[in-house]
């Protein structure tokens, strides 16, 4: 297609032709499928580049036919049903009226004020969450990427974890565990840390216990991460219990840090 015709397409699509010119151009389009397709593409490009939504008609081809067949299948209906079920299960309960909402917001504000006021009076030491923020670091996790493997599920999970794509990381770790009989202990530590980030504390503790039960050199890291999980969850007494255990064993990972942390908690 030459530049002159392409320029006419632009003028037609942008609406800058006179009525007569446009009518002549449309006549030309009627006789050329190639021209018609070029005009369509130019319109679509304009939609895309200007951020407008393109609602073109559905073409009749094998792909759209297959999509239609699938969408009308029982399998698709079942999947849709599953999506709906989870949606309902995860729905945030709504407050019934505007008045209740106002009461709720006012009550929350009062509670927040009281908690902060009491905190200001009594809290001279940093809280568990602050200590967690101070002591938790992903540098304590074993390095997977430098172990010579490339592009494994475990490594992909570690990369997703480092990029803070936690659900994605969790999916990789689960898949890795399902694919091997003897998983690397690192998966328990990474999976636990991922679950902790997702605030699924019970599951995180379970993973760290699996790490502790292993005979790996990194096993005692499990204690440290368990303590971090309790700190993040605001469970001071369990955090102290685990930290005391670390402080009593000089060879446990982060022994000195545990002693230091205990002092701050006491």
């Amino acid at each position: 297609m030459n530049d002159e015709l392409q320029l006419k397409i632009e003028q037609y699509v942008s609406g800058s032709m006179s009525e007569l010119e446009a009518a002549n151009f449309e006549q030309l389009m009627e006789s050329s499928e190639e021209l018609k397709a070029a005009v369509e593409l130019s319109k679509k490009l304009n939609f895309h580049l200007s951020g407008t939504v393109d609602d073109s008609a559905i073409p009749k081809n094998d792909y759209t036919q297959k999509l239609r067949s699938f969408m009308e299948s029982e399998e698709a209906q079942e999947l849709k049903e599953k999506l709906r079920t989870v949606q309902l299960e995860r729905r945030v309960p709504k407050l019934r009226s505007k008045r209740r909402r106002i009461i709720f917001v006012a009550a929350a504000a009062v509670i927040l004020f009281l908690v902060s006021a009491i905190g200001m009076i009594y809290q001279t030491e940093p809280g568990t969450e602050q200590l967690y923020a101070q002591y938790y670091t992903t540098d304590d996790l074993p390095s997977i990427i430098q172990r010579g493997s490339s592009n494994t599920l475990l490594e992909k999970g570690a990369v997703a974890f480092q990029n803070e794509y936690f659900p994605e990381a969790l999916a990789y770790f689960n898949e890795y565990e399902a694919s091997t009989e003897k998983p690397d202990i690192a998966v328990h530590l990474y999976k636990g840390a991922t679950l902790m980030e997702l605030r699924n504390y019970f599951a995180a503790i379970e993973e760290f216990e699996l790490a502790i039960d292993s005979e790996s050199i990194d096993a005692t890291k499990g204690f440290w991460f368990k303590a971090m999980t309790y700190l993040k969850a605001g469970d001071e007494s369990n955090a102290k219990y685990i930290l005391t255990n670390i402080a009593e064993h000089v060879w446990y990972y982060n022994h000195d840090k545990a002693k230091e942390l205990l002092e701050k908690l006491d």
Partner: protein
Amino acid sequence: MLPNTNHIQIQKLLQGDEDTIRLLYDTLFPKFASFVKKNKGTYSDAEETFHNALFQLIARAKVKGVSINTSFEAYVFVVCKNLWFKELNKRKKEVRNDGVFELKDETENQITAILAQERWELFEDMLTELSEKCRLLLQDYFNKVPYDVIVKKFSYATENAAFQRVFKCKKQLATLIKNNSKYNELT
């Protein structure tokens, strides 16, 4: 055998894995709901759009496979966002047409949305094949940046020279798209 899906979470969605769906609702949906609320929508709009986006993703993955080169969360978020803009556009049209609008059945709506998303992905992909200057020029032109500003910014001699350049960049993009095998099944 599953079609070409390069992402573990898409495979899980295809299998109807409820834990994967739950995770999406727990981590991604709140972000999307907040986006919709900031863009003329409600919580229910967000729920409906999120549900449809996931279903459309499953259908695509089942029939053709979905290959993504970003994080799964980021990808789903873009799909949801585009679907919400499509819905807003539809609502705007309904208002303009004084409530008269074309009724399509649900399946047809879903297929239209899938094709629109696939075209969007293809066009975005092809845009990356252009030179950076071309890409930025097209972006400015279609964002209605005045010609005199474009002339200065890209150091063209005249407004006509700028227009000729826009024209050439768009032509180049059109050729790339036309020559891509994916385009045929989307039109």
